[in-house]
């Protein structure tokens, strides 16, 4: 009888252990992410954390916001959130600010306690004269007022460039960013582009009506690759396509943006 108890006891421990490990895997939404910044949204009693998959560099960055009740420290899973990257520059005492294109959380319901959003940082900014901050406006469920928090962050220059500022013939300024999978490979790769128009210093509007053509080439050899699929508009100024790499090495992906009979050209480089 004693033996039986021992077995049952051991079994229960095993079962418990198993369950525990399963739970930890599925409940840590921030696993593999890096904490970039944090701050308190005063007036909303909320602590806001900014997380990212990689260190922040110029170009498109997928970001995650985690909200916690500053009293109970419990995750806030429902909130209306607005984000805006803001750059403050101090040029010999002359202060200037501008924003950058951003992608708002799609829902006011957190996905596994995180609110995914994104930003296209248009220039590097560390400390000193040019500083980036991530402006987050939070309105928790059941509250009437919004609270704002400015999360300071460092943006390093991406090399090669992942974002380009180009001007159209009529003087409109466009922010075009290109994002590849983290590990590009020989074969078929997803490629995504975002296009925003600068309305004023603080406002960037997604553009959804460009026809995008894409021509990859290897500058060292002057050849391209066949059967690429041109990016087409999906949503929020984003265009999705497929780029083919026939070998590893240095690639340049040329993009042609066409609208109303006007062409714009830009390119992004990639080495793997």
């Amino acid at each position, binding site marked *: 009888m004693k033996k039986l108890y021992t077995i049952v006891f051991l079994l229960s421990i095993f079962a418990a252990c198993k369950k525990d490990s399963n739970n930890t895997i599925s409940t840590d939404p921030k696993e593999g992410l890096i904490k970039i910044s944090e701050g308190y949204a005063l007036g909303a009693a909320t602590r806001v954390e900014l997380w990212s998959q990689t260190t922040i560099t110029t170009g498109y960055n997928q970001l995650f916001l985690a909200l916690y009740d500053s009293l109970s420290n419990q995750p806030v899973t429902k909130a209306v959130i607005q984000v805006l990257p803001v750059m403050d520059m101090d040029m010999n005492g002359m202060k200037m600010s501008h924003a950058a294109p951003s992608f708002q959380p799609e829902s006011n319901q957190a996905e596994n306690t995180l609110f995914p959003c994104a930003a296209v940082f248009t220039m590097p900014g560390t400390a000193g004269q040019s500083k980036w901050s991530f402006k987050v406006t939070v309105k928790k469920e059941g509250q009437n007022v919004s609270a704002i928090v400015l999360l300071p962050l460092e943006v390093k220059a991406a090399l090669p460039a992942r974002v380009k500022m180009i001007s159209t013939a009529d003087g409109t300024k466009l922010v075009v960013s290109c994002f590849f999978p983290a590990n590009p*490979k*020989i*074969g*078929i790769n997803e490629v995504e582009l975002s296009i925003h128009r600068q309305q004023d210093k603080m406002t960037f509007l997604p553009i959804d009506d460009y026809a995008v053509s894409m021509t990859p080439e*290897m*500058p*060292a*050899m*002057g*050849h*391209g*690759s*066949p*059967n690429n699929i041109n990016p087409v508009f999906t949503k929020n100024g984003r265009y999705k396509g497929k780029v*083919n*790499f*026939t*070998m*590893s*090495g*240095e690639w340049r992906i040329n993009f042609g943006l066409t609208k109303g009979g006007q062409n714009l050209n830009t390119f992004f480089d990639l*080495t793997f």
Partner: protein
Amino acid sequence: MDIYFKSVPVVFLLLSGSLAIAQTKQDSVIKELALKEVQIHTSRKSKHPRTAFYQSSMLSGIDDILAKVEGLSLIKRGPLGMEPVLRGFSGGQVNVVIDGMKIFGACTDKMDPATIYTEPVNLKSIEVRNGGEGMAMGATVGGTLNLKLADAVIDSNVRLSGSMASGYYSAAAAVQNVLAMNYSAKSWAVRVSGVYRKAGDYKDGLGQKIAFSQYEKVNTSVSGKYLFHKNSLIKADFLLDDGWNIGFPALPMDVGYAKARIASLSYELKEQTGFVQEMEAKVYANSVRHAMDDTRRPAVTMHMDMPGESHTLGAFFQFRLKPQGKQVWKLKTDFYYNSVKADMTMYPQGAAAMYMKTWPENHQMVAGLFLEDGIFLNNESRLDLKLRLEMASSKLADQMGQNQFAVLGYDVHQPINRVLKNLNVSYTRFLSPLFTAYLSGGFNERSPTTSERFGFYLFNRMDNHDYVGNPLLKNEQAWNGELNLLFSTKDLSWKLTAFGSLVQHYIIGKTQSELSVMTTGAAGVRAYKNIPSARLFGAESSFNYEFFNRHFVLNNTWKWLHGEDHQHNPLPLISPIKTITSLRFLHRHLFLQAENEISLRQNQVNLDFGEKTTQGYTVFNLRSGYSFVMKRSQLNFSAGIENLFDKAYAEHLDWGSILRPGRNMYGMLTLKF
């Protein structure tokens, strides 16, 4: 009554006796007709009257010998490793085996056909079978080339025998040293052979040096034999071939190294009285490593590393059954597994290295079943049936290669499985004691090669195009037929052959305008396609006459070939009419030989493939030799002049029309013991 009963078995015995004699005679004639077996002499002199014609000197390389065989041409890209073409069939259309063993080259640019990895000194003979005649050694549409390895000779009277030779060629300032030795005990023997060859850049008929035509190689082989008893033995062969710094003047790159290791173990059973009368079982393995090299070339804009490797494992089991009435059955079952891969790393200046798989790893598995039925119809005629079924599976084993083909729009995750059917029927008719007719025809299939299926932007210098593979290719199928007439007396033999092939799903590269080139300066991209059909036909003549008390031997061969696709455009790589004549004078220990080679102009060219009209030419060679016979050894001195009149010429199949060597004087000393 009594007499009657007694005479029946006598008559029966007589009949069966004559039947057996006739059958042996038929066998030898059929052998003469159905295949060309070029005997090679190394330490022992071949008694075959035509050996001296094919192998004009002991310095002759494999390519020199093959070039003389009627119905065989060579695609030349460099001084070594010429690619054999059988009646217009080349590459994957012909099956080149070493002692029945499958071996696949490791070079994506066909710089290493299997023939490069053997040397005449380790061969006993070269067997050439056209069409499906050699299907026992593998499914093929164009023919089979079997390089038979020399084996150790068990002869308890001669314990140690061998030969040593050293020679010099003037055109390329080339040296060659050959050694072959045989040691025999009562029931076992070992044969060892080795060659070292080194050549510089040769001079052509205009007196100019052809840059990048040098080479260097070493070949060694060991063969052992052990006799269990009179009719059963075990044999082991090991062959090592290392070539390096092999120039390819017609290509943008040379060969850094080409290495082959070939090993086999076989068991043979002969002259058995039971149901199985003959049996051979063999297991083998070979490995080939190859790397191209551009570091010696001037003005290379981008250095590239292009290594490749090929590994093959195989076994076969064949036996001949006891004659059943008029029929003799032979059976063979074989299996092999091959894996090949090749890649390319490019190093642009001031930029990251670029890498891709030129041959993504291809695993091929092939199992075959072969059946032959020789039906002895009567004293005048005989029928031979051959049937081969082959299961072939090919799988792209690496993920990167699969992704590369996804870029081209192919899903190659699944293995490609095929059944290949080969059937051949031949009929021999003994028209008179002097005349024999031999008619043969069949249906043959072959699988596409690794390059044809999975090659990835392989540059072809000839047509200046990049080639991509096509995993969806169908099997190439050929209806082959030939008629041979043989006239032979004691001193004279004359063989006339007419042949034709209708090839369905002929595989050839076709321009893909939607693909852009990868190689800088290339004119376009081609993918392998099956065109509906192609036709090849032609004729050959082989004449051999010994006269003046056999003091003189006259040999003459002719070959003519025509090839066209379904739209009557000429096929590429078709040799013009060519005739080779040699007259040999023999007296005691002296021989003198004069040779003449005439090739006509070829204007049936495939412009699309980058071919140009090739001018005809006439070349003369002179050879001589003298032997000093000593008590237990023999010293031979031979010397000669090839291309006597220093003619500047190129053959039609020479890539880039690079001129062949000009006047070439050679001398050689051989010691036989």
